[in-house]
């Protein structure tokens, strides 16, 4: 390692900050890439608000000749496509999954981090072992279980098996290990047990962490496809992703309607991104600590 001497600090000498010319090139490059990254969003909006004729016109049209707000009503009035129902299913599934995961994983993580118990290590390793098996691979075994419980095409089958997320429990344990013990000890002196100090001291002081976990769980749940596809056999248990996929692979497609459905499907998450991005970024940074 080079030794750090006490010399005048070069101002702004950071990772890769170079000359003025290189900074300008960097900025222009970022603008171009950002424009490319936004193209798919632009296409969703353009196509959702166009007529089929506009979309398939021989010359490229950057904007629809006339904005078709009627496409929204058309999508929801189409009886062949259970859009409203699948949106409702997705909302119920995502919200309950988030709440349930948060409850189960924080309590488990806290217990593992804070309550001294002879076999705590064994329990912890039993949870860690499940991280070795990626959840997507277990879709078949889990399906076997869910079908024998009679939960196929049932929201219970969509929600309950996904709640016991070993990875989230692991993250919670790591987080609670670093939670300042003094706060809890004060609570103990005031006569609170583990349960009391967990709910009254630990949880209220962990809002940032909980929000990060909650947002990332919500986004993952809303966007998941394989499990809802396996379980959602009948159309009244479709989530919005399964409905979209069915729609996409159908023989005949109504292009504006298809893109309107896509727009509706990403709308909740765009809101999450606009208002909760701070927690999301934090959640991603925490998720990445896995490996």
């Amino acid at each position, binding site marked *: 390692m*080079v030794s*750090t*001497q006490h010399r005048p600090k070069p101002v702004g000498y*950071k*990772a*890769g900050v*170079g000359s003025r010319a*290189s900074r300008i090139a960097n900025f222009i490059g*970022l603008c171009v890439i*950002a424009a490319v*990254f936004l*193209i*798919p*969003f632009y*296409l969703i909006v353009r196509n959702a608000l166009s007529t089929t004729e506009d979309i398939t016109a021989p010359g490229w049209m950057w904007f629809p000749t006339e904005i078709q707000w009627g496409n929204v009503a058309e999508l929801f009035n189409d009886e062949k496509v259970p859009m409203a129902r699948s949106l409702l299913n997705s909302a119920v599934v995502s919200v309950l999954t988030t709440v349930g995961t948060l409850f*189960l994983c924080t309590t488990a993580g*806290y*217990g593992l*981090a*804070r*309550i001294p*118990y*002879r076999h705590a*290590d064994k329990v*912890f390793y*039993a949870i860690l072992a499940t991280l*070795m098996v990626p959840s997507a*691979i*277990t879709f*078949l075994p*889990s399906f*076997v*279980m869910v079908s*024998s419980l009679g939960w196929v095409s049932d929201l219970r089958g969509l929600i309950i098996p996904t709640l*016991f997320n070993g990875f989230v429990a692991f993250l919670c344990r790591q987080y609670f*290990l670093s939670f300042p013990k003094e706060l809890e000890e004060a609570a103990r*002196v005031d006569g609170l*047990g*583990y*349960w009391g100090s967990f709910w009254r001291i630990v949880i209220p002081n962990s809002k940032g962490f909980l929000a990060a976990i909650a947002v990332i769980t919500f986004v993952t749940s*809303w*966007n*998941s*496809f394989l499990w809802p*596809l396996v379980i959602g056999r009948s159309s009244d248990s479709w989530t919005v*992703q399964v409905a979209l*996929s069915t729609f*996409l692979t159908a023989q005949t497609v109504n*292009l504006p309607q*298809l*893109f309107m459905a*896509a727009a509706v*499907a*990403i709308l909740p998450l765009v809101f999450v991104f606009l208002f909760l*991005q701070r927690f999301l970024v934090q959640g*991603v*940074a925490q998720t*990445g600590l*896995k*490996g």
Partner: protein
Amino acid sequence: MAVTDKTADPAPAAAGTSRRPRRRRTFGGRNLAFWYFVGPFLLGLIIFTYIPVGWSAYLSLFDARNTVTPTSDDFVGFDNYVTMLTNADFRRSLITFSVFAAIIVPITFASSLGLALAVNKVRIMRAFFRSVFFLPFACSYVVASLVWKMSIFAGVRYGMANTVLGWFGIENIPWLFGNDPPWFWLVIATLRLWIQCGFYMILFIAALQQIPEHLYEAAYVDGAKPGWQTFWHITLPQLRASSVAVLMLVLIAAYQAFDEFWNLLPNSGNVPYARTPLIYLFHTSLGTSQDLGRGSAGALILALLIAIVTLLQGKILGFGKPEGR
């Protein structure tokens, strides 16, 4: 991932001013507390992970078609494993995965690191750029597939890619149909790159900001030139832990590729030239044949493969040491 908190919580012994009598913390009481915190989770994990995996291992030894409770007549020993391992389609799906991983892992790694460096360098609109690159993560693979298949890479004239090529006088390309030339890899790789690049960029930005400033100052003092020199000798070594994490996450995610193959390719991804392992398992076990025995054998083989690759990669890249990061 060390388990080092055996000494956690020396429960306060003084209980003089207690208002609640049940606060006596005997060893039994503490055990009970542990179980009502961890018990529900562990029970769920047993019911929805351990038992299913065990059941699946059991099924893999039977000729279990359309049933999850085969009788002893259907016992076939390790035949399902032999069938799967000698099955050309299954092996080909593993090759498909390897091709896919060979394309997507290095590209994702390089682009997310590149974006992170560029965003970290820019002085204005940094939050804007970060948000834009991260935004695709809001899209599911289904939504992205829809845009890629029906708009950008539609094989007809109004598809965006074909429109642009048309400006240069190039004929329409049927991006997603057919294997010769395999244009669909371009479609699939760009889609996955678009969705996940920003996610890993966030990880790299977080890691970049952890690098102590004085390292760069010292390098400057020692005469290192900003740019490649500091990148190779300071930034990259300092990003080692995150780089390993990103490589592993991208690889594991690639192993589980399903959504975009299902939605982009004809016949729900059930095409011989680009069937991923999960697509193959899905069609074997839940398709028309409903062969849960063979599907289970395949799932276990795949799980084992992933575990081996993860461990090997960890060993090679020095991950998984005590307190790996």
